[in-house]
């Protein structure tokens, strides 16, 4: 098996953030690029969930463990703390119930790594402010208009951090991924960070589960 280095900067970063060994669930694993990298580079026992049939097939051709399923509905099946890491990369904004999904990630995983586009970025704000148009967020490199985008629940990094707080989720570390793939450390989600962050990657934990948190 020859691992391909993920093209997406957020995936390369996530691959670095995962500690070796252990079990990893990649929710919305796409064609399995990240899972394959993690299995070869970090010797993890990987499992994926992917909704699109052709992507599931691509994963299976690579010999990866993957379930054709829906993160919005399937996560409650897993037992508590079944995985060392649960990854949700560029998929939070596609979920019908992102809050419930995030809550589930921290239930079934000891840690969750979540990456998402930040709608608070100055480009998005300018688009809305000056052009009066809905900001277009790229999905897998494809710009999609508001009416056909799968990004139905976009948020800013401030929105995200607030949701984590209400769910009793602790941010262990945050990283900003620039359009050119450059990385910066993120702190508490200041106004400045929210303005300049293109994509955010957060490592999350939760010591206790808040029932019906928030």
């Amino acid at each position, binding site marked *: *098996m020859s691992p391909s280095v993920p093209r997406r900067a957020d995936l390369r970063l996530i691959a670095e953030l995962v500690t070796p060994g252990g*079990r990893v669930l990649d929710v919305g694993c796409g064609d399995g690029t990240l899972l394959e990298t993690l299995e070869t580079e970090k010797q993890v*026992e990987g*499992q994926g969930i992917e909704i699109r*049939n052709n992507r*599931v*097939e691509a994963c*299976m*051709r*690579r*010999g*990866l*463990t*993957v*379930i*054709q*399923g829906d993160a919005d509905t*399937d996560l409650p*099946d*897993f*037992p508590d703390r*079944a*995985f060392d890491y649960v990854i949700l990369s560029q998929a939070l904004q596609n979920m019908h119930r992102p809050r419930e999904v995030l809550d589930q990630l921290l239930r079934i995983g000891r840690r969750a790594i979540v990456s998402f586009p930040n709608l608070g970025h100055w480009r998005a704000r300018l688009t809305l402010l000056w052009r009066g148009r809905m900001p277009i967020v790229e999905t897998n490199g494809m710009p999609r208009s508001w009416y056909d985008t799968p990004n139905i629940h976009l948020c800013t990094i401030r929105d995200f951090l607030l949701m984590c707080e209400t769910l009793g989720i602790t941010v262990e570390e945050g990283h900003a991924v620039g359009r050119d793939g450059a990385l910066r450390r993120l702190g508490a989600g200041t106004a400045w960070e929210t303005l300049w962050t293109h994509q955010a990657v957060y490592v999350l934990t939760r010591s206790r589960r808040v029932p019906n948190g928030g």
Partner: protein
Amino acid sequence: MEIEAATVDFEPIFALDGKLKLQSQVELAGTQCAYQTYGTLNADRSNAIMICHGLTGDQYVAGTNPLTGRAGWWDHVVGPGLVLDTDQYFVICTNVLGGCLGTTGPSTINPDTGQPWNMDFPVFTVADMVDLQVHLIDALGIDQLFAVIGASMGGMMALDWAARHPERVFASIPVAASWRHTAQNIAFHEVGRRAITADADWHDGAYRGLGVKPEKGLAAARMVAHITYLSETAFQEKFGRELPRDSKLSFVLDPEFEVERYLDHQGKTFVQRFDAASYMYLTRAMDYFDLAARHDGDLSAVFKGVGTRFLLVSFTSDWLFPTAESRTIVRALNANAADVSFIEIPADYGHDSFLIESATDFHDVLEGFLDGSARRRGLKP
């Protein structure tokens, strides 16, 4: 061309020492199991794959079936360089308990009477079929199968293997399967059985030696079953409302439409290779199948602590064993954080999609899963 089963040599045959204890508590003496193998068992006996055939399948997966003279039912999947690569794997397929191609069943001789068992044969279950296979791999010196794969009834067997003998199965691949036979499944089987017993040549199952067979009943049973194996789309695309002769209605009640003639042909060829009593017993075994029954309906309890890897496959147009059934199994496995893969393959051919040579998506998935499993098992670098 009809070949009498009795004239075919079903070697090799495994003869079980002692009795086979059935789920019904009946102990069956003198049990034999006819099987075929393809490829070579490696030195540490870790490369064996058990294929479990469907309701009316047999042990002749690849090569020429001596009974029909035609290619084996999975000849395009099993062989050197194929998906189940016999250059790498040692493939075993048995004629299941109760079958009619060399394994003990209603058509074989009851050692106590010297007569065919007929309807005195005990009712057996899918678990009993699996247990006979367990005895066979014991005899072959195989501690753990690399994989068990089966579709339909064979998928039930692949599930039962993993549920009751998890330590003996590295990977289980139930295809187009279910964790239990549904009310609708049972209903269709009952129609088939009723067609057989309504045949004047049935003679309460004691037709052997009378020079007759309940062929009309068995053919009707097969016709009904065959409809359930295909999809509406498959029927429509293959036959539509086509008429064979000059495309005009003849105003008769005899089979006239292409689809009627096709089903008639299916029924007639089937009775040449299958025994009616076996059909009665095997359909019953499927009806009895309910993995969760031993755990008060809790399917996740069935897989508690299971270490087997799973690949479940369903087909979009399969309405006999629909995707929802496989999904229920996946959810039960997820509840145990088991190592499970699942895919629903887009296919128009219905339940029988697993048999189709052009189902390349299915074959690619199978190959990928086997490769990944072989790496994990240390069979491949």
